[in-house]
């Protein structure tokens, strides 16, 4: 009981605690995960915008510079044919912004002034192609940042013609500023883009084109620094699905078999997540994204968030693509959840231990109570001893229990008393009963003998020649018979001791107690003991002797039914007042007694064991108690023994 209560308490506390925490943890997790993912997409969107803006800002100076130079050339502030002045202007421009790789001007005549950043011998290199007098010269000049000459060279093998370059042609045909497609720069072999602005004279004729080169490596560099999350990657695609900017800038340029250089396709780049996420885009024609496209992706058992957004504000058909592993955003929450589950488990354990201790505290009075109750029930402690400090409920239970115990004790005591008395009775008074039985049985034949002797003496006295010896013999016979009678009278005196013990008692109470004594034997032999129509009647008799008779009769009935293997074994006991007597019937469903079988005689029995005393002693006892006992041969279906006992209220009868 103790174990189970503590266990239940512990399990309930710990289990409920664990469940509650788990629910909280998971709901928190789900909502926060959702929030985090939303936030992540926001971040990515923002990063996309950032990249767009950055790209715009990055590219803007190129166009500005080109327009500035164009303005100067158009307005005539600088003469296009004055290569020195043009070089000076372009020199300033190439150094004005770090992303500017080169600035140049080509004209319709094929002249070309090109300033670019250089690794040496000077930081800036100028290339001038001049057509003078039908001849062509290509001159290289390296200068330091102060425009001082560092080195000079002439390249007679140069065949560069600006008019054949794509930037020139597209600007010339568009007659307005254009951006070229990204391409790999001729001189630096690096990916780049050119802002080309045509120089158109007031009469509308094309004079030349100013170009500003911007190396896209810088954008790749920017993208590599654009950290959205630890595992995120941002890249820029052109409309052909080629990667023009990627954090790993060295990967985006590949060499064709003919040694020409091109951008790597989105499907080719060594970025499996990007391949999976965006590879399909390039397969269905030119890439055209009008707005932000968000999606999720499962790749290699990991979830990724992806974002596609167009770069706005320019005429550039570029798309920025970002992918980031979901875990970058929710890993913290997942870790948190794992930690929380551990915390829940620990709290549950602590709660369980607390529950156990609590149960211990709660149980202490209960246990004390249980111990006390068991002591009370064993009789070690009196039921009146004060109850230890305990609960209201237990106190009430105790009161009921104590009441029950005292009642049971009382009934047990009565039962014990009767059993003890019966034991004593059967032990001590057995001899007396035997004597009484013998006295009764012997008195009949001796009476018959004395009567016959008397008859013989009477007859002899009437004879004429009476033999004195015969008379003597008859006289002695008479004497001896009466001596036997005297012995019987003496024997009879043995039971007289009980005569003073007549008391008035409730017959039903005594019957109940006797039934209890026989119950066990009845149960063993599957006999049903039934009490019917027994009403409350006070009888005047010797209680213990009457109990003995009842037990005797029931015992006989059980034995008879068991020996006869009767199917339905039942003993029915009833009692009814009859004149001034209580008439008691003890009926059984056994085979009954044959009409010619002698009952109530000592030493006469149908049983294989036993001396036949039971019935005769019972009869003797009942008669000694002023009633009589007989077998009712009239009873059809049952074997019925009857006896009577004087009722206490005999005074009413007379």
């Amino acid at each position, binding site marked *: 009981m103790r174990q189970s209560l503590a266990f239940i308490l512990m399990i309930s506390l710990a289990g409920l605690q664990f469940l509650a925490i788990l629910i909280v943890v998971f709901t928190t997790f789900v909502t926060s995960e959702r929030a985090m993912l939303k936030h992540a997409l926001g971040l990515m969107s923002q990063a996309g915008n950032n990249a767009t803006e950055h790209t715009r800002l990055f590219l803007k100076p190129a166009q500005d510079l080109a327009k500035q130079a164009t303005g100067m050339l158009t307005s005539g502030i600088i003469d296009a044919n004055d290569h020195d002045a043009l070089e000076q202007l372009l020199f300033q421009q190439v150094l004005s912004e770090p992303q500017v790789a080169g600035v140049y001007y080509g004209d319709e005549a094929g002249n070309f002034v090109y300033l670019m950043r250089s690794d040496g011998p000077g930081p800036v290199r100028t290339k001038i192609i001049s057509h003078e007098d039908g001849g062509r010269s290509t001159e290289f000049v390296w200068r330091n940042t102060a425009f001082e000459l560092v080195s000079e060279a002439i390249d007679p093998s140069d065949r560069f013609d600006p008019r054949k370059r794509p930037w020139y042609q597209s600007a010339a045909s568009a007659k307005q500023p254009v951006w070229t497609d990204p391409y790999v720069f001729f001189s630096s072999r690096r990916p780049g883009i050119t802002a080309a602005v045509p120089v158109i004279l007031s009469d509308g004729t094309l004079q030349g084109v100013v170009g500003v080169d911007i190396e896209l490596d810088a954008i790749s560099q920017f993208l590599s620094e654009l950290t959205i999350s630890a595992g995120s990657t941002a890249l820029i695609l052109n409309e052909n699905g080629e990667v023009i900017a990627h954090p790993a800038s060295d990967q985006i340029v590949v060499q064709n078999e003919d040694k020409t250089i091109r951008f790597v396709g989105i499907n080719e780049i060594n970025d499996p997540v990007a391949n999976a996420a965006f590879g399909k885009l390039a397969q269905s024609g030119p890439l055209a994204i009008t707005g932000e496209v968000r999606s999720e992706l499962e790749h290699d058992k990991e979830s990724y968030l992806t974002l596609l957004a167009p770069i706005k504000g320019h005429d550039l058909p570029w798309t920025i693509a970002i992918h980031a592993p979901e875990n970058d955003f929710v890993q913290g929450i997942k870790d948190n959840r794992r930690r929380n589950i551990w915390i829940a488990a620990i709290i549950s354990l602590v709660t369980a231990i607390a529950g156990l201790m609590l149960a211990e505290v709660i149980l202490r009075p209960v246990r004390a109570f249980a111990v006390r109750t068991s002591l009370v029930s064993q009789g070690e402690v009196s039921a009146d001893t004060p109850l230890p400090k305990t609960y209201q409920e237990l106190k009430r239970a105790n009161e009921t229990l104590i009441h029950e115990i005292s009642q049971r004790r009382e009934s047990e005591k009565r039962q014990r008393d009767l059993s003890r008395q019966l034991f004593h009775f059967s032990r001590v008074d057995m001899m007396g009963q035997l004597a009484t039985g013998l*006295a009764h049985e012997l008195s009949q034949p001796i009476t018959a003998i004395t009567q016959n002797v008397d008859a013989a003496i009477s007859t002899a006295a009437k004879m004429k020649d009476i033999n004195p010896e015969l008379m003597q013999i008859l006289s002695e016979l008479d004497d001896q018979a*009466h001596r036997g009678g005297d012995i019987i009278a003496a024997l009879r005196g043995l039971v007289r001791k009980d005569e003073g013990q007549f008391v008035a008692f409730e017959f039903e109470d005594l019957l109940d107690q006797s039934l209890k004594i026989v119950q066990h034997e009845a149960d063993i032999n599957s006999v049903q003991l039934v009490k019917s129509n027994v009403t409350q009647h006070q009888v005047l008799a010797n209680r213990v002797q009457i109990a003995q008779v009842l037990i005797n009769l029931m015992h006989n009935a059980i034995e008879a039914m068991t020996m006869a293997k009767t199917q339905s074994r039942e003993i029915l006991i009833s009692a009814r007042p009859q*004149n001034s007597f209580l008439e008691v019937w003890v009926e059984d469903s056994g085979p009954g007694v044959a009409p010619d079988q002698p009952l109530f005689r000592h030493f006469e029995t149908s049983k294989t064991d036993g001396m036949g005393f039971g019935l005769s002693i019972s009869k003797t006892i009942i008669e000694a108690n002023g009633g009589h006992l007989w077998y009712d041969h009239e009873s059809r279906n049952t074997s019925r023994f009857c006896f009577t006992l004087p009722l206490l209220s005999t005074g009413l009868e007379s």
Partner: protein
Amino acid sequence: MEPIIFLVDDEEEVRVTLSRALKMRGFKVKAFANAEQFLNGYQPSEAGCLVLDYGMPGMNGLQLQSELNRRGISVPIVFISGHGGVPESVEAMKGGAVDFIQKPFRQRHLIECIEDAFKVDAANRAKVADEVQARERFERLTVREREVADFMIANPSYTTSKHIGRELDISPRTVDHHRARILEKLEINSVAELIDLAARIESAIP
């Protein structure tokens, strides 16, 4: 008429031997196996006594005794018992038994009891006969004579003719005449004998 011993005992051997022995001694015996047989076979006009076994199945000795008392049959009873408890004997004696003796008994003792019982029975019967005779004599009187006789029985101190005449509103001469007729019819000689006769049939006096 010779008195009869009515013997009631359920034990056959006792019943047979006892009745035989008593017959040998010259008694007239009628034996019954139980109380019911006796009640059916007994005529109250038969003089004698009842020798009754105490312990019997069915109606026992004591119950038969109270039944006889209830019916107003006053046959004297000698109880014989195989158990013989003091409480039963007390009950029996209270019910008017002559004696309560235990089996086996000395025949002499039983005979004495029986003879005592016969005497009781004879006395009872004589008394009853006396009563009957006295009642018959009183019934010979006329209404007037009965009136005078009753007055004399009720008032033994005022038996002069004058006194009676005044009380009954008749002349003393008539009273004298009635008195002579009363003494003649009742076969007595004096007023004292009249009172004695009346005492024998108390029940007859209104």
